[in-house]
């Protein structure tokens, strides 16, 4: 399935497709993905539209969930347990951690289930299957944007001023999305074959939340272990996000580097694994 293969003599100015058995290592298919960008847009648009179609509160849900989690965390960890928040008012601190976390967890859950929920499409029409997990992540970015407005209000309320580091913010948002997609690629391909994934994923995400410095700061972790802590890529993402927006602690150096390399590895591996499994999705799903 290589569009426009050169080995084919083409007398017509038409795209030529070669259909052959899967063999060896697949290409990443990024060029084809670009050709299908419109479909990617439509999938995202559908996901967002359908999600809020039948809810009374609509897009407010994107705010309600992180907001209430922020309240609960502030009460238990901030007020009662006096967890250190690096000198930042705890509610702002935790909300700034919850935002990238929510982006990550929502993207991860939705993208992991994206193949299974679109089973009919996969069985009836061709498109690069990777469109499905990607559009799930983009749809989550929309929710993230809505929830982000609350953070701005909170920062204004508590008088927290962003530093120059804010220019790095988009990079951390992107990193959160990439982390989710990287893991989502693995899990969605796995889910197509083994439905166990569907049942384990929520448990998995909850577990991951506590391993990530959302309710607490990574400064709780002894310095010499901190780089190792970066093996959880979300540690780097959350700390980086918070740092770029609120300042507070110093820039997360080695830990972030470890996290980024981790994401790159997971991402490339996930994409290859996904492409390799793609050939049999329609047969096993």
């Amino acid at each position, binding site marked *: 399935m290589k569009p426009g293969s050169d080995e084919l*003599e083409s007398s017509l100015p*038409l*795209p030529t497709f070669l259909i*052959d058995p*899967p063999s060896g290592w697949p290409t990443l298919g990024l060029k084809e993905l670009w050709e299908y960008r419109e479909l990617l847009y439509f999938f995202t648009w*559908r996901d967002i539209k359908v999600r809020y179609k039948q809810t009374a509160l609509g897009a407010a849900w994107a705010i309600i969930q992180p907001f209430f989690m922020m309240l609960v965390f502030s009460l238990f960890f901030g007020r009662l347990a006096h967890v250190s928040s690096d000198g930042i008012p705890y509610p702002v601190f935790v909300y700034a951690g919850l935002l990238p976390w929510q982006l990550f967890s929502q993207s991860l859950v939705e993208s992991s289930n994206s193949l299974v929920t679109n089973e009919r499409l996969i*069985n*009836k029409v*061709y498109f690069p299957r990777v469109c499905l997990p990607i559009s799930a992540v983009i749809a989550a970015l929309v929710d993230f944007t809505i929830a982000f407005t609350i953070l701005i209000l909170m920062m204004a309320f508590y008088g927290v001023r962003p530093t120059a580091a804010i220019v790095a913010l988009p990079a951390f948002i992107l990193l959160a999305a990439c982390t989710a997609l990287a893991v989502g690629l693995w899990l969605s391909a796995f889910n197509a074959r083994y439905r166990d994934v569907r049942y384990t994923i929520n448990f998995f995400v909850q577990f991951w939340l506590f391993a990530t410095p959302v309710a607490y700061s990574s400064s709780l972790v002894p310095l010499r272990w901190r780089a190792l802590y970066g093996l959880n890529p979300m540690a780097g993402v959350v700390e980086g996000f918070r740092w770029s927006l609120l300042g507070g602690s110093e820039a997360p150096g080695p830990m972030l580097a470890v996290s980024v390399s981790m994401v790159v590895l997971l991402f490339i591996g996930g994409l290859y694994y996904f492409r390799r499994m793609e*050939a049999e999705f329609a047969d096993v799903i």
Partner: protein
Amino acid sequence: MNNFAIKVEHLGKRYRVGGQERYKSLRDVLTNRVKAPFRSLRPSRKNGNGSSAAAGTDFQDQYPRRRNGNGFVWALDDVSFQIEPGEVVGIIGRNGAGKSTLLRVLARITRPTRGKAQIRGRVGALLEVGTGFHPELTGRDNIYLSGAVLGMRSTEIKSKFDEIVAFAEIERFIDTPVKRYSSGMQVRLAFAVAAHLEPEILLIDEVLAVGDAEFQKKCLGKIGDVAKQGRTILFVSHHMPSVVRLSPRTLLLDRGRITDSGKTAEVVGTYLNSGFGLQAEQCWPDPSSAPGNDLVRLNVVRVQNTSGESQQFFDSRESIGIEIGYTVMHPVTKLAAEFVVYDSQGVLLFTSANQYDDGLLELHRPGEYLSTCWIPGNLMTEGTFFVRVSVVEIQMPVKVHVFEENVLAFQISDPMQKDSARGRIAHDYPGLIRPRLEWKTRFSEREVFSI
């Protein structure tokens, strides 16, 4: 011969026996691994004359196919053919012959196990009605969504939007969620989008089997128009009349192999004469899967001889009984069971309905009905015939409750004996019907001079 649209070389697709077996969980995988050695011991079901209801999708319910002994089955086996740009080619064959698998491979939904295919041009695949539809979204949204999924650019959809809406006849409901549409409207909208696809190559799988007759005709017409514009069309159908009408060339698939290809009339003839696809009886013991809706359901349809036995091959002198059994759930007026008979060229020969039975048209009370119509002997010509059965409310607005194409088939042969219509005439004896008509010949004796 380089100017091809589709070129298929030694294509093969292998599935594990049990077809699209799904591994639902890791545990299943483990237990399957353990059971696997025993799987081949299971007796394979030798099915032959398919007399039961419509076949499912499970391969094991079809007929046994080529196996290589390791629990695999070749759904496609060494298939090669070439299609020129602008050709319209039909694919026929029994259920499970590999027709749909072939389309799925060409549509790039699944990869082949062996061989290769080359396709020149953009491909549009129409493997079901309403691909990409989402019930929560409005008709307008779904036109865009389904169009995009089927491979249209959004500018293309925009420019054809009004045309699609008009074709579907849903102008008033365009901003209503599709889940509130009647099933007929949903099908019309889905079709309208699909019918406006304009790829160079169109793959169509049996999608004409749904929708009401009027709309089917409209779609056939639209596809015919597309064909005239020089697009390449490959389509699978059980509906011989549309195969004959649309495609000059046809491939016959059997057990994953191409067993015949060439001029449609000849291939269809081969197929029909092989006895494949002929069914003299179909019954639906389970009402939930029977054709129909919550007012009327089909129970049984049968071609029978005068002794009341199901029969497929008739002597042209025999009367042929068409039996339609249906259940009516609520009282309904102006309901009639109908059938039409096609010949193998797709020519509709005649229609008949049970409208003259006592009081039946005035009121159908809830219950089971069994209607039999007798086609007299010495009326029809030789050949293979297909029956479409429908149950409809016959007055405006006409409501179609059951509409089953090709639900029955039977064959007639003229015994060439002295009391048949053809009698002892050895030469070609053409005609759409072959009635044995009354002749009177007067003779007067006189002297005749030879010249």
